[in-house]
């Protein structure tokens, strides 16, 4: 349900505004809303002073420094780690600002250092293969002081080009050169071409014309050829791990020394920023302040008592009459019993409902497991699902998505087992082979009764949705509610007429129902407009859509029966059992996914479409900042 809200006005002397805001922040009850300011009235909207604005910008910078520092140190604040211990002194903010800046600067330097070291290592490793190939050749390079060496890689498939290269070089510069080759593990061929210094220019031209590129020597090891660079690179490769470890150790040390304080500082800075951001939501006169907002009706007395106890008659709290505010503007908070609360997650896929409309959570909590159960409808699958739910519940923490899923699985498993007894199914037809009798009907055989059951559920669900639609609009939009009422009556009349036509009801019902429809039709057009008949047809289509419960249910039982037939169909019993288990596993996986999606769809499209009014504002009381809980 959507809990009732009261709009209140808090009035007091202007010099005590900051103090009152702190009290309200401690209380975490009032959802602030800016008061209405009329032109010419003495009441104006408060704004931050120059020093407050400067403080706000400074705190945002501090927050950015803290966030960057914590991110680099891989620290994540938890609600327990930021427990409040009173408002911090101004000196604490100054200390935190310095600390955050210093830590951010150092951790960013360390990160860049680590990245640079890793890149350098990767670069050297890239050359490592060349080292081993060229080492023997490079030793020869040093023996020619008046020679120039070129280091080239040739693809293995181009090995035939090497004799041509020799021939070209011989034609161009005569015998003043030597070509050394060495195959590499990668399939390429390493070439060291040594030529007499005077012929170097001509060789470079030849290599350029042939588009043969030399292996570049990294600049930081330059000052010579590969022969000089390789020993330096190898030496550096040995130094990199210790340099990296040193940087990582320094990061860990920073996290140990300053992590906890930075997390505390983050919470305090957020709190102070919230305080400053609340100022423009305040109305002020030269001598007084006015704060307006919503508080849950059941907590209004707590707010009044606390402010009275702390400020006496200096601060007054008055309730604003419900006629003075639009219900669409009121914030929404859902409050459901413990058992129903997990289903708020399913409703949460949609934006919150408007205040004053209906929270569909209780209906989802009943119908979603029921639809799921009817689609799967197997005692065996239900038991396996229950075990999975118990395991998830055991391994998950309270408040996490996994825990919520486990709590939704529980009722779904229960309804699956109940439906399993109704249809006499235990891993398909294993139950009937063991003597299990269906309490209602056998889905395998009785498709039409199952179809009627599914469509009947659709009728109930859709009529419930339409009734909720009437209930949620009757107070604010009575004409719309009347139109919806006529539409609902027409759906009922159509269904009764159809039942009379197929002899489920006495034939004598048919004519009165048709007359009723003919009377209601003009009323519907007048109230709902020309599109109303289309809406009516769409509603009848929505009811038929519930046939998917039957379709998926039949598919599920058929797959289970096919799985069981594997045991007899394959020669070996053991192989048959393995195949049967695999088939059941596939069917179970489908049974988890498909019925969930279709049960949700029946709610979101067919049911919610009849009454749900999304667009509500989330209730966010002015309070202390707390970090979000981890998702799982």
């Amino acid at each position, binding site marked *: 349900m959507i809990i009732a809200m009261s709009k209140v006005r808090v009035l007091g002397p202007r010099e005590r505004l900051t103090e009152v805001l702190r009290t309200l922040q401690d209380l975490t009850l009032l959802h602030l809303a800016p008061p209405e300011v009329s032109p010419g009235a003495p009441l104006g909207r408060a704004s931050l002073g120059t020093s407050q604005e400067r403080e706000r910008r400074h705190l945002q910078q501090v927050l950015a420094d803290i966030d960057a520092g914590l991110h680099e140190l891989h620290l994540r604040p938890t609600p327990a780690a930021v427990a409040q211990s009173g408002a911090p002194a101004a000196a604490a903010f100054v200390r935190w600002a310095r600390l955050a800046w210093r830590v951010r600067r150092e951790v960013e330097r360390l990160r860049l250092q680590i990245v640079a070291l890793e890149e350098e290592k990767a670069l050297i490793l890239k050359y490592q293969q060349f080292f081993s190939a060229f080492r023997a050749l490079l030793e020869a390079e040093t023996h020619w002081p008046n020679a120039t060496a070129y280091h080239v890689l040739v693809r293995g498939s181009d090995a035939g080009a090497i004799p041509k290269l020799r021939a070209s070089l011989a034609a161009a510069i005569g015998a003043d050169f030597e070509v050394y080759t060495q195959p590499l593990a990668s399939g390429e061929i390493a070439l060291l071409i040594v030529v007499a210094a005077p012929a170097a220019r001509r060789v470079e031209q030849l290599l350029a014309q042939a588009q043969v590129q030399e292996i570049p020597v990294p600049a930081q090891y330059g000052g010579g050829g590969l022969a000089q660079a390789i020993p330096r690179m190898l030496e550096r490769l040995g130094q990199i791990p210790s340099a990296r470890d040193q940087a990582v150790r320094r990061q860990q040390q920073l996290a140990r020394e300053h992590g906890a304080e930075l997390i505390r500082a983050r919470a305090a800075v957020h709190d102070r920023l919230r305080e400053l951001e609340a100022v423009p939501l305040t109305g002020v006169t030269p001598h007084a302040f006015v704060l307006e907002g919503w508080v849950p009706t059941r907590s209004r007395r707590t707010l009044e008592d606390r402010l009275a106890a702390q400020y006496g008659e200096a601060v007054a709290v008055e309730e604003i009459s419900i006629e003075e505010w639009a219900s669409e503007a009121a914030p929404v908070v859902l409050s459901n019993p413990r058992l129903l609360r997990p289903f708020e997650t399913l409703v949460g*896929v949609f934006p919150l409902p408007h205040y004053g409309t209906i929270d569909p959570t209780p209906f989802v909590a009943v119908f979603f497991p029921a639809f799921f159960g009817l689609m799967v409808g197997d005692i065996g699958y239900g038991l396996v699902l229950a075990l999975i739910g118990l395991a998830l519940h055991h391994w998950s923490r309270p408040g996490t998505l996994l825990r919520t899923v486990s709590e939704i699985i529980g009722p779904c498993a229960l309804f699956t087992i109940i439906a399993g007894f109704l249809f006499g199914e235990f891993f398909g037809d294993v139950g009937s082979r063991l003597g299990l009798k269906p309490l209602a009907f056998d889905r395998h055989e009785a*498709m*039409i009764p199952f*179809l009627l059951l599914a469509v009947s559920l659709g009728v109930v669900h859709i009529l419930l949705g339409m009734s909720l639609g009437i209930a949620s609009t009757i107070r604010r939009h009575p004409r719309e509610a009347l139109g919806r009422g006529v539409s609902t009556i027409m759906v009922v009349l159509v269904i009764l007429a159809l039942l009379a036509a197929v002899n489920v009801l006495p034939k004598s019902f048919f004519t009165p129902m048709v007359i009723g429809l003919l009377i209601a039709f003009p009323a519907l057009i007048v109230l709902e407009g020309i599109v109303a008949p289309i809406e009516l047809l769409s509603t009848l289509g929505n009811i*038929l*859509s519930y*046939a*998917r419960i*039957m*379709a998926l249910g039949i598919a599920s039982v058929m797959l289970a029966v096919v799985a069981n037939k594997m045991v007899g169909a394959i020669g070996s019993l053991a192989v048959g059992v393995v195949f049967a288990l695999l088939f059941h596993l596939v069917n179970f996986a489908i049974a988890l996914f498909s019925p969930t*999606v*279709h049960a*949700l*769809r029946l709610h*979101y*499209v067919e049911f919610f479409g009849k009454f749900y009014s999304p667009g509500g504002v989330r209730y966010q009381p002015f309070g202390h900042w707390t970090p979000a809980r981890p998702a799982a």
Partner: protein
Amino acid sequence: MEAVLITLAAALAVAVPALATAWAQSRIGTAAAAALAEKPELRTTAILMIAIPETMVILGFVVAAAILFR
């Protein structure tokens, strides 16, 4: 002959909507994959959108059942 025609009618009642559903799901699936690349938080909506055209084949199945078990 009548039995053959009844069976053929039931088969067509499922097959034609199944093809239509497959075509619709392929289009929605492509769009959903593109949307999810931009906004992963839309995954629940995307799955539901993909399930919407299945109504066609489900109604086809109902019609087929009605033809076979009339």
